[in-house]
């Protein structure tokens, strides 16, 4: 579903992502991990088509840069790390923004757009909140609304940039369980970036470890989350313990 070959991205003259190869099969969940500044978010944005890059990114077979923007927006939806919360905007209107690629430039939302929004709101248990103002919701509620907006695009691919960084551990699990459920129900392909290694490993089927813009390890969580790899690239001492859903990474004081 996602095929990335030789992806390089320069921002302001600096090479941030350096010849990255990445594959995500249809319906798979792949999480990119790596220390701060490794290029995780930049790689994700390039895959989403919102950054210029060198190399090739194919989504469902099509080169992302050749897809017309509106067509691209129907295939791939992104939840950014900290999305702008427009002041005063209601949940319903925010989720309806996800239907933008379906609404003709001079037209208005159709009944099917509203039906799609209703369906997503119900699926994410947000129906009762649709009349609330987004800027009055809690962090966990907002994250669900951001996800709802992305799902309203009816995408086949979901890109999640640090989807849980603003949440407490309870809400982290809630949101990721939700994503996993939607992935199964809707056959979504998920590519995410995450900081919390244990949680990342529990949900991803495969992981890619980036450091200095390059892929330094890729494979199952058990293959990537090893004490040696993490020590080398995060410069941290950790103990990795076997858990029910993947390795548990515990930092240990030096």
């Amino acid at each position, binding site marked *: 579903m996602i095929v990335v070959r030789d992806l390089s991205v320069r921002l302001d003259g600096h090479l941030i992502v350096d010849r990255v190869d990445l594959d995500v099969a249809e319906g798979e969940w792949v999480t990119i991990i790596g220390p701060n500044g490794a290029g995780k978010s930049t790689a994700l944005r390039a895959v989403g088509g919102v950054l210029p890059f060198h190399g090739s990114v194919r989504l469902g077979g099509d080169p992302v840069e050749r897809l017309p*923007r509106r067509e691209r927006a129907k295939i*791939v939806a992104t939840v950014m790390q900290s999305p*702008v919360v427009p*002041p005063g*905007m209601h949940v*319903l*209107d925010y989720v309806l923004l996800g239907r933008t*690629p379906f609404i003709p430039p*001079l037209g208005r939302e159709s009944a099917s757009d509203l039906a799609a929004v209703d369906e997503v709101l119900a699926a994410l248990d947000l129906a009762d909140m649709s009349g609330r103002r987004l800027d009055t919701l809690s962090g966990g509620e907002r994250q669900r609304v951001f996800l709802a907006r992305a799902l309203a*695009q009816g995408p086949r691919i979901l890109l999640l940039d640090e989807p849980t960084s603003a949440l407490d551990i309870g809400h982290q699990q809630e949101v990721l369980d939700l994503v996993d459920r939607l992935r199964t129900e809707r056959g979504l392909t998920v590519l995410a970036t995450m900081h919390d290694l244990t949680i990342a490993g529990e949900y991803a089927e495969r992981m890619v470890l980036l450091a200095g813009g390059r892929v330094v390890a890729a494979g199952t969580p058990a293959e990537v989350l090893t004490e040696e790899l993490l020590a080398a690239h995060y410069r941290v001492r950790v103990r990795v313990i076997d858990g029910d859903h993947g390795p548990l990474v515990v930092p240990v004081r030096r």
Partner: protein
Amino acid sequence: MTPVGRTGTVRPRPAGLRPWWLVAGVLAVAVALVAGIAFGPVSLPPGSVAVELLNLIPGVRMDSGLTEREIAIVTELRLPRVVLGLLVGAMLALAGAAYQGVFRNPLADPHLLGVAAGAGLGVTAVIAGRASTSDVTANLPIGVPLAAFAGALIAVALTWVLGSAGGRARTPATLILAGVAVSAFLSAAQTFLLQRHVDAMREVYSWLLGRLGTAGWHDVLMVLPYAAVTGAIVLSRRRELDVLTVGDEEAASLGLHPQRSRYLLIVAASLATAAAVSVSGLIGFVGIIVPHTLRLLAGPSYRSILPLSVLFGAAFLALTDLLARTVAGQAEIPIGVVTAFLGAPFFVLVLRSTKAVAP
């Protein structure tokens, strides 16, 4: 029947122009039109004025009870002035709302990118030139409106070029900063010119403070094409402005060309402002106060703010003009003074009485 959600609460509807707001806006314009024509040195019965306005529609013929002379006052003197006020008010309020959306800045006003300073310099140059060597330049083919229009557009173009200077990408922030620099420079040039031609000061100031005084059908016909074209462009982009509130990158991921939308809106709003300034001088406050009042009362969606700004901006300026020419007897107060005088306290009132403060 109102659709009811699972919990029994009224199901919310998507933001957009609500019919009752549209009706209120049209009513406001109608009231401003009739009142603006009926009241003045010679007051006419508003009912008769309304009938006489209906008579302008082809095929309608009713007796208004007005004399020939009174009908002439309505159609030849007051109607063009009121219509000009409606057009200028609509353009300024719409341009202000568009700028606020494009720059995501609640303080953006139609004069943000140097329009006021450019127009001011253009007008000062023409008036000062005329005053100093009256025989040679008095009949220059360039009049005050054209000088204002040209000056405004040159200033915006300059801001545009400077906004990307140094090879950096043009962003809303660099454009606003370039606008500040261009305005400061052109204002200094204007002050310099005025200092050397003190005799022109009075005429320049009367223009700077805004007026609809010399309005005839000529002025109306001059701005009408700009109002129509820029109005259509800005209004057709109202949904895009709503999408732009989530930021450029997200707007791009939703299928928009944020830069393209933004530039088109800036060009249209600047053109509308330049056209308005060229016939009315510098009228402040309309472009900030009208959109913000509507934002507070009718919600933050540009799908309602933009069309309502057209209607209420028009009505506001036409009514302000009525006050400007009636409250002080024969002496007319500059309309820019009245807009600020009325607008500022009214805005404070709205700000204090609404809980939902959205920039």
